[in-house]
Each structure stands twice: as C-alpha cells, then as structure tokens.
C-alpha cells in the first residue's frame, strides 16, 4: 500500500501539514508525521490509528504535495484495513444516525417510500433509460429539520433544469444511498452491498445513463462503483457537465441576476475531479452577477469542515467559521455552493447563536441559481 500511494516519495517537506485545515485550526494532527510513522515507525500503532481516523479527506494535502503522494487514497485504504481488523472507529457526528440509515438501506428486502416529495412543479418519467440520482436529500431534510436544511430544493431544481433541456428523468423508487459516507468511514462491507443493490436496480429498470447532481454521489457512482461491479456499463453524467454541453449548442441564455456572490468549492468537485473551471464558466454565464472569489478558492478552497459525518468537533467548527468569515470578507451577500453537504455544514454554523449573526449569509446551490435564471435564447 505504501508503494501504491507513493508514500516513499514523501520528502517530509511538510507542505501537507502546513495546508491541512485541521492543523491550521490548531488540532494536533499532521499528515506528514503520519506518513513518517507509517514508513519508519510502524510500531507506534496507537498514533497511526488515531491519525487515520482524524483526517477530513478534503484532499488539500494531496493538492499541495510536490511528490504526488496520494494521501486521500492512503487514508481510505487504511480506514478500510483498520475497520476490518479492529472495528469502526472515529467519532460519528449525530451519534451515527446517518450511517445508521445508510446501513439499514443495504437490507435487500427494503421497500422505501422515498418519492413522496415529487410534485407538479417537475416532470418525471415512470420508466426510461435516463435516470436521475436523488441521493439522501429526502432523509437529510427530515433529520436536519432543526436547522432548516432544504436539500430537496436542489433535487427539484436539478430536475427543473433537466426538464428545461427536454429531459424527463426516471426516478428510482427504491434507490439506495450511494454509500459515500460508509466508504469513507471504513464500512466497506455495507458500502459494497449498497453499490451492488443500486447497480441491480438500475439494470432491472433498464437504465443506461444516470445523471447526478451531488458531487459525492458522482464521485462514488463514477469512480468507485465501476471498481466494485465487474462489467459496469452505465454512463454516469454530472448534471453540470451535461448543462455545459447543452449550453454550447446554443439557444439558451440566463436572465440577469444582479447580486454580488461568492463561491464555496466542494472538495469532491474541484480536487477529486477537476471541475473548478467548469463551475466558474457556468457562474460567468449569468449576466450582471458579480462573482467575488474568497481568499482561498478553486482547487485551494478551504474545506466546509466535515466529510462523511465523521469527526465533527470544535476544530471543524473553527474551519467553518473561518470559511464563512472569508465569504463575508468578499462583501458578497450570497454564498453559492455545489454540494448539499457543504450546504448542511455551513447552515449549521451560520445558525450558531454565539456568533450573533456575524457570519450569517444566504446559501444557495449553484443548480438552484441556474434553474431560476435559465431561459430560451430570445424568449
């Protein structure tokens, strides 16, 4: 594994630790030291185990590493390995409720009622070869009702965009969680079960293409599912990619949106798959909207503070506060993001009563903004 992830290439320059958002907020955590221990001091198991579960997997260290150490994959494989040997570790936020329902979804006989939210504002098909992957949005909105998270709007707006492009997507009535959070917290067994069940339901329904708007779901369906399923032959499309292609064909434009906005880059969308220029291209298409970049943006954007609902702590909060301060410093009054998880974590921090609204900001998903502003050219 050490060879695979190029860990021997580590020069111990320390750029990873110096850019790690966890370290920058004062946590005793160092990717460099972890790499060092794994190579030369493997007997210090306690340290290694602890450190492996501390990472937020935002990918900043990999981004900064001059030697190309694949630190993210290293963490992923280490967690998988340690979970198999010593059980799942790491503090699960919300007492693991989210992982709980994700695991429950891997039961084969499950019959979900996950499409109750579909209303007249969107057009969906009851079958077809193009499906839209909803993800956990219906679950999040109930679980996080206390902080008024509204991720289903992102799903509705995604489908509105598809409708605008004359696509009536098919929604799987028994779609399961993509398993992102289970994979990244080490529960490979249930993750693979979810992958296989999702693949089977896509195949059974005759689906050939899946359109995804959530970056995490895209990361899983596009990169990890083909690894798990032999002979994987589904086309996985990111909604924003599709939109860009369609916009290039012409005939569509955006209505002016006269606001000053800033953008939170999701780690899965800019560092794991490089879409940072696509995001900016799309943002640039809206007339009159002024995009002011934060101090750290694009591939160097700061993490939203948490990933996979593991290790949410005071340091996560500090990262989020720092990020929101950056956002406020741009003078923008709207924070646009492209990942429902960024939205959940940021919304949680914004509502912190002790901050007396000093970091308060409106947050919207990019898809929602695009869906509201798009129009036929000249029409």
């Amino acid at each position, binding site marked *: 594994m050490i060879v695979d992830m190029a860990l021997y290439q580590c020069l111990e320059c320390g750029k990873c630790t110096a850019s790690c958002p966890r370290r920058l907020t004062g946590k005793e955590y160092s990717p460099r030291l972890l790499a060092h221990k794994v190579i030369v001091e493997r007997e210090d198991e306690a340290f290694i185990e602890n450190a492996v579960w501390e990472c937020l997997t935002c990918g900043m260290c990999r981004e900064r590493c001059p030697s190309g150490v694949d630190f993210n994959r290293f963490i992923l494989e280490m967690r998988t390995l340690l979970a198999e040997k010593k059980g799942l570790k790491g503090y699960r936020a919300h007492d693991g409720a989210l992982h*709980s*329902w994700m695991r429950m979804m891997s*039961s084969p006989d*499950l019959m979900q*009622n996950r499409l109750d939210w579909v209303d007249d504002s969107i057009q969906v098909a009851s079958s077809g070869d193009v499906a839209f992957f909803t993800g956990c949005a219906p679950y999040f909105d109930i679980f996080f009702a206390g902080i008024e998270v509204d991720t289903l709007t992102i799903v509705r707006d995604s489908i509105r965009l598809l409708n605008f492009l004359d696509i009536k997507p098919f929604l799987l009535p028994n779609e399961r969680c993509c398993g992102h959070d289970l994979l990244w917290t080490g529960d490979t067994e249930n993750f693979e079960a979810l992958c296989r069940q999702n693949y089977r339901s896509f195949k059974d329904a005759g689906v050939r293409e899946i359109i995804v708007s959530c970056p995490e779901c895209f990361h899983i369906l596009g990169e990890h599912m083909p690894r798990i399923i032999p002979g994987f032959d589904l086309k996985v499309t990111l909604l924003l990619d599709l939109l860009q292609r369609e916009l290039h064909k012409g005939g569509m434009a955006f209505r002016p949106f006269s606001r000053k906005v800033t953008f939170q880059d999701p780690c899965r969308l800019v560092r794991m798959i490089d879409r940072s220029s696509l995001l900016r291209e799309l943002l640039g298409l809206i007339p009159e909207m002024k995009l002011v970049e934060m101090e750290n943006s694009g591939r160097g954007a700061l993490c939203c503070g948490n990933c996979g609902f593991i290790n949410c702590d005071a340091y996560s909060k500090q990262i989020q506060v720092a990020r929101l301060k950056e956002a406020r410093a741009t003078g923008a009054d709207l924070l646009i993001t492209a990942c429902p998880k960024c939205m959940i974590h940021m919304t949680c921090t914004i509502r912190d009563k002790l901050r007396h609204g000093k970091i308060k900001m409106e947050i919207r998903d990019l898809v929602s903004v695009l869906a509201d502003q798009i129009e036929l050219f000249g029409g």
Partner: protein
Amino acid sequence: MERVKILGICCNWSPFACYNAAGMTGKKMPSNFRLIRVMCIGRINQALILKAFEFGADGVILLECKDEDCRYGPGPEVGHENVKRVRRILHLLGIKQERLVECTFGAHDKEELVRALWKFAGDIKAMGPVTITNGQRSEGLRR
C-alpha cells in the same frame, strides 16, 4: 412465525416507577420485551432510536413522563420532536410508523404501563419482523 423483538426506552422517573411497581406486584410482561433505562427521555436523540432498528428491534416504545412532570424540564417535548422526525425517516425507509410509539405515564400508572406494553407487543407481533436485516450487529469489532 419468527419471533419479534421489542425495545422499551424508559425514563428513570415516573415510567420506571410504574415499571418497578408492576414488577413488584408480579404483573406479567411480554417476554420479547427489553428495557433500557435512561435518566430522561430528553437524553434520547434520533440516532439512538434509529440504532435500535439498525441493531434488530422490530418495535420501539418510548416510556415518558407526562409533559408537566418532567424533572428536568423539556424531556418529553424533546421526545415528541424526535419521535415525529424518526417516524418520518422510518416511513422513507419503508418501515411502518406504528413501529415507533411514545406513551406518557404518571408515577402511579402501573396498570396503564403494563397494558400499553401488551398492546404494543400485540401490534408488533401482528406486523411481524421488519425488513431491515443488514444493519450492524455491534459497534466495535465486526469479525
């Protein structure tokens, strides 16, 4: 028919006093019933209820104090809110909402408590086991 499992989460104060009194007077309880005693139902969050189902419960009953009797203040209200939300999540998962109920008791309601437990046990027996079969069996070592 497969045996169903019922979990009761019981507040230490009024409901547990009832449970204790019922036990003292030799009242018969459903044999497939397990009880977890907590200091207050306000201690229970959505995660713990969901976990009960993940770990194999077929029905969960929250035994709470009456709203005005809570020793700590907001306990039962927190319970109502959690039950409301978890029921909606259970619905999404295709689990009947009736598998999660909450009952409130005064300190002397031992008959009511025993009756509620038997009624719940009967309801769950009629519904049969849940479709959740793939949860985690224990939090620590898996193999």
